[in-house]
């Protein structure tokens, strides 16, 4: 009996078509075709788990130190993984007798090539070392002067919320977003004019929450829109134009 051709297997794996009766019955009996289909389905499932994992930030040095310790191969092993050349499957170095699985070496390599982290894994790797300086809750006695729901914008956009608080030292913009890890670079919070004709940078959003001081002389009526941008480390302090979350302040 003829095997299912690769194009049809691809479509089946992608769920773009259902197996016709002939193919379905063939899959029942042919372990080769079933194995092929399973392998392709695994690829598709993995890709769909996290569709935007394409801009991973390199992990900090301490992560590499932890990896080196975990595999009991300080120095050389880590250097090999950090070499971008090793990240293509064909040239990834083979390893024997190591306590660390090849899969996770591959994942480590994936980080370095610059793919973006699934939140869960990033949290895992960041461990307890997450920046704890961002506030968890609003200090008592602060009044909310205005608030905004922030809606996702563009690829990798995220939900969030912003509040203007009347704090002891002046007005604070408290921004909370749903996803902690920047895809690359860092995130910056801006207040924009209603016509998108002017903007003020309030500061950096690290983690999922930031409390940023609004200049005392700034009239929020002139800058009613809260914007969160993704900023590369390119030495250019102006807005990258890559906004990921935005919303208008309402009293």
């Amino acid at each position: 009996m003829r095997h299912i051709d690769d194009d049809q297997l691809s479509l089946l794996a992608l769920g773009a078509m259902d197996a016709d009766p002939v193919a379905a019955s063939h899959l029942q009996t042919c372990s080769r075709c079933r194995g092929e289909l399973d392998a392709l389905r695994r690829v598709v499932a993995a890709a769909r788990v996290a569709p935007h994992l394409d801009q991973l930030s390199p992990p900090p040095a301490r992560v590499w130190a932890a990896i080196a310790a975990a595999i009991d191969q300080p120095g050389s092993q880590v250097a090999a993984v950090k070499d971008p050349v090793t990240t293509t499957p064909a040239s990834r170095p083979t390893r024997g007798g190591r306590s660390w699985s090849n899969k996770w070496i591959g994942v480590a390599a994936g980080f370095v090539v610059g793919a973006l982290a699934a939140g869960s894994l990033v949290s895992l790797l960041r461990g307890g070392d997450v920046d704890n300086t961002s506030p968890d809750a609003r200090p008592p006695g602060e009044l909310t002067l205005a608030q905004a729901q922030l809606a996702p914008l563009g690829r990798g956009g995220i939900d969030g919320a912003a509040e203007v608080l009347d704090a002891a030292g002046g007005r604070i913009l408290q921004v909370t977003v749903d996803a902690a890890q920047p895809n690359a670079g860092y995130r910056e919070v801006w207040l924009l004019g209603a016509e998108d004709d002017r903007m003020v940078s309030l500061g950096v959003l690290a983690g999922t929450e930031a409390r940023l001081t609004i200049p005392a002389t700034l009239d929020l009526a002139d800058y009613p829109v809260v914007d969160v941008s993704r900023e590369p480390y390119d030495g250019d302090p102006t807005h990258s134009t890559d906004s990921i979350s935005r919303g208008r302040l309402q009293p």
Partner: protein
Amino acid sequence: MAPRDESLSEADVVADSLIIAAAMTGLIEPQRGVIELAFYEGLTHDQIARRLDLPLGTVKSHVRRGLQRLRAALEVTDAPH
């Protein structure tokens, strides 16, 4: 022994997704665009061909080879040590 797919732990799935994400960055256009439409929008070959204005045969070839390349990335890391 259970088939491999059924034995994937949650950590394996996360690892798979990171490997795939890294491997996707190695795909060149238009193959990457073709694969992304197939993955994330679930389009058929015909629909992708129309969307990207590419010949059907080219799309089929990109889907097939792209998937195989990503699969190879997973299997490299599957090798027992």
